[in-house]
């Protein structure tokens, strides 16, 4: 693959594994995913062979803190070390740079998610689950991770401080996750007309995620995630353009 996106993608993905970051992230992700499933989700006690409730329903909360830790370095580090100047004076477009780095982070999150496969084997060993629904759950989880990463990539470009990038991403992802819930909506209800409040409610990650993770793949949910990722990555390119000077 000699496309600039492919070249960047390979360099970025390799760079995760060149440092302990990758291994620490994967181990923590797997330990937490397992702990949630077996202790909070009551995987054994439920006596049902499915993964929607005990496994996938915890992913949004797991991602809320782990994905920003992954995305915070994406652009903040490039800006801090100055390598952004090297990258953006190569014969590539801004969008290629954004996509190359983003896709590598997403693929990395995908690798971590795929390594949860023992739970899928376990549930098949113990019972007779709906494997189509489990696959849909994985798809939903992967899309959710991608959406969080797109938010994180954009906010990482806004600062050269990784801690600020992390906190901003957690807050924005939290608000987007709960956009359909009173916690967020009550703030807007006071001063926005109802149709706009409804529009905000429909932005909620959680609503779209939970329908997919239950095994219902609705085209509207897929389009929603696609638009969400597209929007944040476009914003990412705009933010880099505005902020690269300082």
């Amino acid at each position: 693959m000699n496309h600039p996106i492919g070249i960047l993608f390979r360099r970025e993905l390799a760079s995760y594994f060149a440092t302990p970051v990758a291994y620490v992230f994967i181990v923590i992700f797997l330990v937490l995913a397992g702990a949630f499933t077996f202790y909070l989700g009551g995987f054994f006690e439920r006596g049902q062979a499915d993964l929607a409730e005990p496994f996938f329903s915890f992913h949004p909360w797991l991602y809320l803190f782990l994905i920003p830790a992954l995305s915070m370095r994406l652009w903040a580090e490039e800006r801090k070390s100055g390598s952004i100047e090297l990258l953006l004076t190569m014969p590539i477009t801004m969008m290629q740079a954004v996509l190359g780095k983003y896709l590598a982070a997403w693929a990395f999150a995908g690798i971590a998610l795929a390594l949860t496969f023992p739970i899928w084997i376990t549930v098949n060993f113990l019972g007779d689950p709906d494997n189509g629904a489990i696959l849909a759950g994985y798809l939903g989880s992967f899309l959710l991770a991608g959406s969080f990463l797109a938010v994180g990539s954009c906010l990482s470009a806004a600062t050269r401080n990784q801690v600020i990038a992390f906190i901003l991403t957690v807050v924005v992802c939290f608000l987007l996750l709960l956009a359909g819930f009173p916690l967020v909506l009550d703030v807007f209800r006071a001063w926005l007309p109802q149709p706009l409040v409804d529009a905000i409610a429909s932005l909620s990650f959680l609503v779209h995620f939970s329908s997919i993770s239950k095994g219902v793949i609705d085209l509207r949910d897929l389009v929603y995630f696609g638009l969400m990722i597209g929007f944040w990555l476009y914003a990412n390119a705009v933010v880099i353009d505005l902020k690269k000077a300082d």
Partner: protein
Amino acid sequence: MIEISHLGKRYGDIVAVDDVSFKVEPGQVLGFLGPNGAGKSTTMKMIAGFLTPTTGTAKVCGHDVQVQSIEAKRALGYLPEGAPSYGEMRVADFLSFIADLRGLAGAHRRQRLDDAIQRLSLEGVLSQPIETLSKGFRRRVGLAQAVLHDPPVLILDEPTDGLDPNQKHEVRVLINAMAKDKTIVVSTHILEEVHAVCTRAIIIARGRVLADASPDELEARSRYHGAVSLCTPASAETRELLAALPDVASVELDAQDQRLTAFPRPGKQIFDQVSELVRQRHIAVSELALERGRLDEVFRTVTSGASGAGAAA
């Protein structure tokens, strides 16, 4: 070839670069001089296509860096200030990553990589992560990256900063070796470098071009240009004898090393007169020299804005 016209960059109310225009032809090595914060790096970043100019245009080999940015970037090798790279990568991996992004392939790719590695003597560190290298080696990796695709235009922001004298010399030899058919812009605040590598120098301060000339022409602006300096134990009487010469405007005594410097009247040559005087009066001199002019003095005069200080001009 680089063509810059009315280039300007403004951050809010602060003007970093103000209406800069110049043109550099192949075969020229342009030295970009100026105090820190003068706008050197900002100008170079705009030529390299990293920063968007507020006003004006920059063209690299005829390609506008804003409109045809990919073509312009292809024609350009750029060493950013501080030679940033990806610290966790090994030197060999980093260079092949750059070669891939530059679209080099096959035998040509191999040959360009070998050439860059050999020119910058990186053979010994190829398998080391860049972050473990010394400052000098990191700078050389940055240079290797910039020359990798054999670009017709090179923009080097402080290429010798942080190098030891031997490495500085090597980098100057490298620049001179490439100077024949390339257009090269080098920023520096080491003035000796200007003589060593540049065919032309631009002095920039507060975002404006204050001087644009060859190093020799710049030296000629120095009040020391054409002055004669000598060292003698009998400095007091010699000083009076020198001052009495018809074409000598003034004589100064350096209190530190007892060196006398005689400044000529405008347009006059005084070296012969001074040496004749020394011979006739049997003055014991340990040193007698014709000054070419001092770049650092011209630099200070030009950039401090004290335009009235050029007494000999």
